[in-house]
């Protein structure tokens, strides 16, 4: 039972109605001296307005290159409990569903071998076990193994894939996000555990264009459910919404980015061939409208945070693909992308930055994907076109040489 330091500043954060992480650390500190020193160091950070952690060294479990973030205090003498304070990233089950049994097992392990502090979850999606020492890593891994929990990614590897809950609880899922997420995770175990890429590579799976895992903003490959064919309409339910006081003209029709809807006061018409699949009308009338019957996904590539070349959103690579096991078409595509990027990507160059550097057109050629208009918001505005062939004097008019 460690004695908990005075933390007048942090104590201010125990006030207020929102759950307090300070209270949580104190709770853990009752049991763990690490957390007592964490409180001490954190209070000092609050006092001095600066963090006291050093760069993480390379630590991990045998046979794995990722999944552990080494962390060391810059003030080890003062706070010996956090001189080592590593994070273990435990690969969450797809969709973040748990039985209490499984969660309790993890809690028991972490009580025995770590700080008792967690993030449920990390923003990539892993279960974050926050704070342990190097020598505890192997025992923790051994015990996790017993309960079938493997660890997640870190470093220049495939990061732990995550997804929205999709078909498990959402009426709009256009493909089985949890099934695909689990399958990708299993299919690429080696890439997940052994960093061998120029930089990290993230997958995020959303079941529809609402994109509930924000995949278009933070996944090197964003797989977002989409549909073909007419939006399914229950006319009676539409009338219900109208009766119920919904202003279908202003709430629905006027918000359609494709301007492809019409409402004459009694009937709602959708020019489906112009629909941009934004989800809005479906979102506001879930009882009346549903995505079309032909289901699949749009694959986008390249999003990331700003460092180095500026933040990127993913852009369309495959406008529409059916996604059913064994997902061969998808995996072939992924392998081709990884080959090209691993071959020509620079150190710490995300695939999105790589595409910007080499040019989308050249990238598509390298991964053997045909350019289609869906890949661009609009064609080029500048006339600086690298035409690749030209006629030489004396050529037959029909044949061209490469430049």
């Amino acid at each position, binding site marked *: 039972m460690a004695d908990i330091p005075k933390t007048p500043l942090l104590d201010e954060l125990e006030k207020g109605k929102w759950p307090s992480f300070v209270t949580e650390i104190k709770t853990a500190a009752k049991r763990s001296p690490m957390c007592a020193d964490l409180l001490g160091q954190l209070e000092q950070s609050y006092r001095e307005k600066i963090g006291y952690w050093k760069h993480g060294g390379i630590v991990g479990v045998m046979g794995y290159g990722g999944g552990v973030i080494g962390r060391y205090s810059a003030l080890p003498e003062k706070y010996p409990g956090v001189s080592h304070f590593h994070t273990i990233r435990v690969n969450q089950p797809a969709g973040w569903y748990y039985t209490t049994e499984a969660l309790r097992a993890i809690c028991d392990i972490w009580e025995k071998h770590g700080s008792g502090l967690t993030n449920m979850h990390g923003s990539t999606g892993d279960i974050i076990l926050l704070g342990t020492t190097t020598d505890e890593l192997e025992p923790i891994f051994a015990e996790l193994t017993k309960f079938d929990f493997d660890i997640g990614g870190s470093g220049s590897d495939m990061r732990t894939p995550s997804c929205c809950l999709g078909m498990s609880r959402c009426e709009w899922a256009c493909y089985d996000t949890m099934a695909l997420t689990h399958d990708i995770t299993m299919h690429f175990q080696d890439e997940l555990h052994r960093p061998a890429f120029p930089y990290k590579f993230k997958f995020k799976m959303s079941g529809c264009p609402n994109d509930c895992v924000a995949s278009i903003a933070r996944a090197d490959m964003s797989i977002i459910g989409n549909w*073909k064919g007419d939006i399914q309409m229950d006319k009676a339910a539409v009338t219900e919404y109208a009766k119920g006081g919904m202003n279908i003209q202003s709430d629905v029709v006027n918000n359609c980015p494709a301007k492809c809807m019409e409402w004459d006061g009694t009937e709602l018409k959708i020019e489906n061939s112009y629909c941009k699949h934004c989800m809005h009308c479906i979102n506001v009338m879930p009882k009346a409208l549903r995505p079309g019957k032909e289901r699949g996904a749009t694959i986008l590539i390249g999003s990331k945070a700003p460092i180095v070349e500026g933040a990127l959103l*993913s852009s369309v690579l495959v406008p529409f693909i059916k996604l059913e096991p064994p997902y061969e078409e998808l995996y072939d595509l992924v392998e081709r992308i990884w080959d090209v990027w691993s071959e020509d990507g620079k150190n710490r160059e995300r695939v999105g930055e790589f595409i910007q550097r080499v040019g989308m057109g050249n990238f598509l050629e390298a991964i053997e994907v045909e*350019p289609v208009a869906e890949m661009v918001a*609009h064609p*080029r505005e500048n006339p600086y076109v690298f*035409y690749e062939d030209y006629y030489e004097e004396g050529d037959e008019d029909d044949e061209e040489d490469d430049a």
Partner: protein
Amino acid sequence: MADVMKDRRTDFGPPHYSKFLPPIIKENYGKWKYHEILKPGVMVHVSETDAKLFTVRASSGRLIAIDKIRNYCDLADKYCDGFLRFTSRHNVEFLLTKSENIDPLIADLKALGHPVGGIGNAITSIVHTQGWVHCHSAATDASGVVKAVMDDLIEYFEETKLPGKLRIALACCLNMCGAVHCSDIAILGIHRRPPKINHDTLKKTCEIPNVVAACPTAAVRPAEVDGKQSVEIIEERCMFCANCFTVCPSMPIADPLNDGVSIWVGGKVSNARHEPMFSKLAIPFIPNNPPRWPEAVEAIRGLVELWAANARKYERMGEWIERIGWPKFFKMSGIEFQKEHIDDFKHAGLTFKRSTHLTF
């Protein structure tokens, strides 16, 4: 010579426009209240003083002999008290105070071979440039292409049956003197083969550092070629802009086998509804086929008719395409989407489709 300069007038500028304004305009300057389009090529502006000014607009031809200018003057003297003007798109406008003069004037203009129109929801004259008639930089001719295209589209000049205005411009090289970069339909002369360097003359005729600096893609670098100081071109970096040639005559780029025109769509200048937009690449290349460029003429008519048939009222070409999305435009137009359409210059990343807003 010194005294030549002494008693000589310089820097006196153009004549003051007020000398050239018809009385009705002087009287109603800044007092115009509204206008109405009476029929193709004819509109009336009504002043707060109730004065009415009738305008008849005709294609001037732009590249004209003084004889033609004198013909215009005859008509202006006959119907407009000796006043006339030209427009920012090089049409000629006759300003009348008597409505009964409109039809006789139109008859005379037709007799002179100059179609009346271009007002309102019409295609007006094509802004264009010099081409083979006068410029060393041309990748195609200007006047010839314009003539062929307008012969074909004249019905849209003489009538107002389109959803909105449609502006066509032509530039015979990437310098874009026609400022084609914001036109509903742009015709742009392009080269497709790197300059051929004349190593014998280069050192004498060009500043090597300027030539190197002129290349947007750093394709030009200094080099010694059989003993002569010169430059070399990294061919795969060259995108044929001709800027090196602009600063250096010893790097001719024009090439009969590879020069031609590209077609761009969806630009606009006005702030009406949508903000101004650049034109975007539609057809990467059509070989020069003088004297009448039939493939280009046909392609342009196709684009005009596609837009006319599908755009909503007031939708300019670019507004229409933005609503339906470019994939639909390519499908409907039958134009094949190719690598060339994908931007790979400075801001390329921002032209990628960063959403799932797709049509299927």
